[in-house]
């Protein structure tokens, strides 16, 4: 990898003298995805790239302002909780889909009932399975019935739950939607060449949405799987915008201020170390000892890794959640970097000479190696196992992983239920199995009172920190590189909203 970076540097070094061709004359923003989408249909996609297209092409009933976190009406103008399991929404009138089909209650009812039907095999069922059904009250009023109280409902209605045109979807289904998507969003899709090219153009009849009208006329999204080639295309004028640029390349590009601008923003993804505190992999293993877990925490200089490797606007987190998520209380017990204290704690736990343990990871190998370096220094000898995510997850579910470096992107949902609710409710990936924590987190996932939820999550995070069940590490960050004719301000949820781009 290092060799590749070095050679890449030398190759691109030759290109610095080249002139820039990117311009705004044809009003087309060109960008690239590293990854092919499995489907453009929002409900049959789990990739972040798909979320970007989805937010441009479709709208949700609500909208979460990424700057303030406040929920605003989008396709709905008002919403009321009738009771814990029913939301009534007044829909915006005069909205049309890209194909001219008017938007009304029938579309909401059809969409919700379609996606909640398990036979239809929605890709990420967690995005929709909290809803039971939808019913029409009148042409512009609907009720969504929930399976059980689900406090983060608004977050989902503003995110992954987007509205489809009932007549069109009934006719074409997921395959048709994937090749000729129709939504109400600020951009309509002109061309889909699966895995290669997506062409979007501004929807002139876009409704009065808090998303805002699109500024740039056309968007062209290519799939270029190699970041080096993407950089070359940036030099070439073939691309105007790069996304997810590795820190070393971003630093080099930042030096060319006359041609490019590099902006960095936090991502919702965080890194953390899982520790098998419940002893499922080894009932008498060292991880079951609180002092050992605290020693692990003290052994790692998280800030040093952020400064040297993760870089950008990443920051160390103390609770296992992204700071922008609702319910993420970072004011919990912290463990400073203190290798001597770590050694002392290990000695107190009966491991004066340390011990040997299998350490697992599936991505960001340099980070994992840095973490192991710190552990080795206090006497915890780590045997490194670097696996594919699917293999590691299988091992974790089989309870064969005593300690691992993991990350979680919460599917871009700004609510801790998407992370704490996934890992501390007694499921197969719960390494703590703390009955108290399980109870608090479960309750927080079912009460609608926001203050009560915050209180419960705070209690849970406090205990997780006190017991050192996890070692929360850092938030991730994303580097965006823009041609100097482009204006864009990224948000902390890692979602690139095409309507937010403009030419300078």
């Amino acid at each position: 990898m290092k060799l590749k970076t070095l050679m890449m540097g030398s190759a691109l070094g030759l290109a610095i003298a080249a002139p820039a061709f990117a311009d705004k004359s044809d009003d087309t923003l060109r960008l690239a995805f590293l990854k092919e989408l499995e489907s453009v249909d929002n409900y049959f996609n789990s990739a972040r790239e798909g979320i970007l297209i989805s937010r441009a092409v479709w709208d949700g009933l609500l909208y979460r302002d990424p700057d303030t976190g406040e929920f605003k009406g989008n396709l709905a103008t008002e919403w009321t909780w009738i009771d814990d399991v029913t939301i009534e929404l007044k829909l915006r009138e005069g909205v049309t889909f890209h194909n001219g089909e008017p938007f009304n209650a029938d579309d909401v009812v059809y969409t919700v009932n379609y996606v909640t039907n398990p036979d239809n095999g929605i890709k990420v069922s967690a995005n929709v399975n909290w809803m039971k059904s939808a019913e029409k009250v009148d042409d512009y009023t609907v009720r969504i019935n929930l399976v059980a109280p689900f406090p983060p409902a608004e977050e989902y209605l503003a995110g992954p739950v987007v509205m489809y045109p009932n007549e069109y979807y009934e006719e074409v289904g997921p395959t048709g939607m994937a090749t000729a998507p129709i939504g109400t969003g600020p951009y309509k899709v002109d061309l889909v060449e699966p895995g290669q090219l997506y062409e979007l153009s501004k929807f002139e009849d876009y409704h009065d949405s808090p998303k805002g009208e699109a500024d740039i006329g056309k968007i062209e999204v290519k799939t270029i799987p190699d970041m080096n080639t993407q950089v070359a295309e940036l030099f070439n004028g073939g691309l105007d915008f790069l996304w997810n640029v590795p820190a070393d390349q971003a630093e080099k590009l930042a030096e060319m201020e006359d041609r490019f601008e590099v902006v960095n923003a936090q991502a919702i993804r965080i890194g953390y170390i899982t520790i098998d505190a419940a002893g499922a992999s080894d009932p008498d293993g060292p991880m079951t000892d609180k002092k050992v877990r605290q020693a692990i925490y003290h052994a790692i200089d998280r800030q040093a890794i952020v400064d040297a490797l993760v870089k950008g606007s990443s920051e160390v987190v103390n609770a296992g959640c992204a700071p922008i998520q609702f319910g993420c209380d970072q004011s919990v017990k912290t463990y400073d970097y203190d290798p001597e204290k770590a050694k002392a704690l290990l000695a107190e736990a009966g491991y004066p000479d340390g011990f040997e343990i299998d350490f697992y990871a599936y991505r960001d190998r340099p980070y994992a190696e840095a973490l192991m370096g710190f552990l080795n220094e206090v006497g915890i000898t780590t045997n490194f196992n670097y696996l594919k995510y699917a293999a590691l997850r299988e091992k974790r579910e089989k309870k064969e992983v005593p300690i691992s470096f993991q990350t979680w992107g919460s599917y871009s949902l700004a609510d801790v239920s998407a992370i704490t609710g996934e890992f501390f409710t007694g499921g197969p990936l719960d390494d703590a199995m703390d009955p108290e924590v399980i109870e608090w987190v479960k309750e927080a996932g079912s009460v609608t009172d926001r203050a009560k939820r915050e209180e419960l999550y705070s209690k849970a995070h406090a205990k997780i920190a006190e017991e050192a069940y996890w070692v929360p590490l850092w938030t991730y960050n994303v580097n965006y590189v823009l041609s100097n004719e482009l204006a864009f301000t990224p948000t902390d949820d890692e979602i690139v909203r095409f309507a937010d781009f403009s030419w300078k």
Partner: protein
Amino acid sequence: MAVYILKRLGLALLVALTVSFISFSLLFMAGDPAVAIAGENATAVDIARINERYGFDRPMIVQYGDWLGSAVTGDLGNSWYFDMSVTELIGDRLKVTMKLGIFAISLALLVAIPLGVAAAANPNSLIDRFALFLSVVGQAIPSFWFGLILIVVFSINLGLLPASGNATWRHFVLPTVVLGYYATPAIMRLTRAGMMEVLSSDYIRTARAKGLGTRKVMFKHALRNAIIPVVSLAAVQMGFMLGGSIVVETVFALHGAGYLAWESISRNDLPTMQALILIFSTFYILFTFLADVLNAWLDPRLRVG
């Protein structure tokens, strides 16, 4: 000749079947496919649902039997990742890879054989040293780096050729050069070595003694014999290029079958991967078979074996 061809065909089928079974088993060992389908953020509920839907709880051999039965009838299943017919998915990608493979092997043969012959005819000359230099460099530089250098020079600095995509023939120029160059050294060295050996043999000396012209000796008598191992090697290289053009397809964003194969492995998209392995191994076996037949035609002695 007919018996020879039939025997070879039988063997080829057996190899294809074995390869498909081994690859099927290996792919199943690469982690829980349900997790791979569901994606990194999947919940336990998603995974359980997928396990049920795709029947991953059945014994592997039963799943292989099902798959093979369908494959024989032309049904390669649905891609788990793209949720579309594998045949449809692979169709266009394979065209890109075939095009690239044929261009690249043609370029490699066009460069390597004349150069190998010239080098063998003039040992230790300037042309021989040039050929050797070209082959050493070709083997030493990584394809991705060579590809990037070509992009920097021809696409960024000179603005002559596109850096990515497969829309026109111009998009294939740089990838063809990179992939072709990768295959050139081996073919060139084998041609050179074969020619040198043949040129020093008795029958060539006799031909020369009879007063035949150099060109006739070289191309009619020597090359026909020296080329036999080259034909086999070119067939192997062609098979390799179809399956192994991953790096080139990635660097130039060609969206061919090689890149699809790599992506399918990383996503655990088993139906796509299995279909690709079947197709690649069939091509590989087909090329080897054709090379055997061609060699048997070039050298009748080989038909005995």
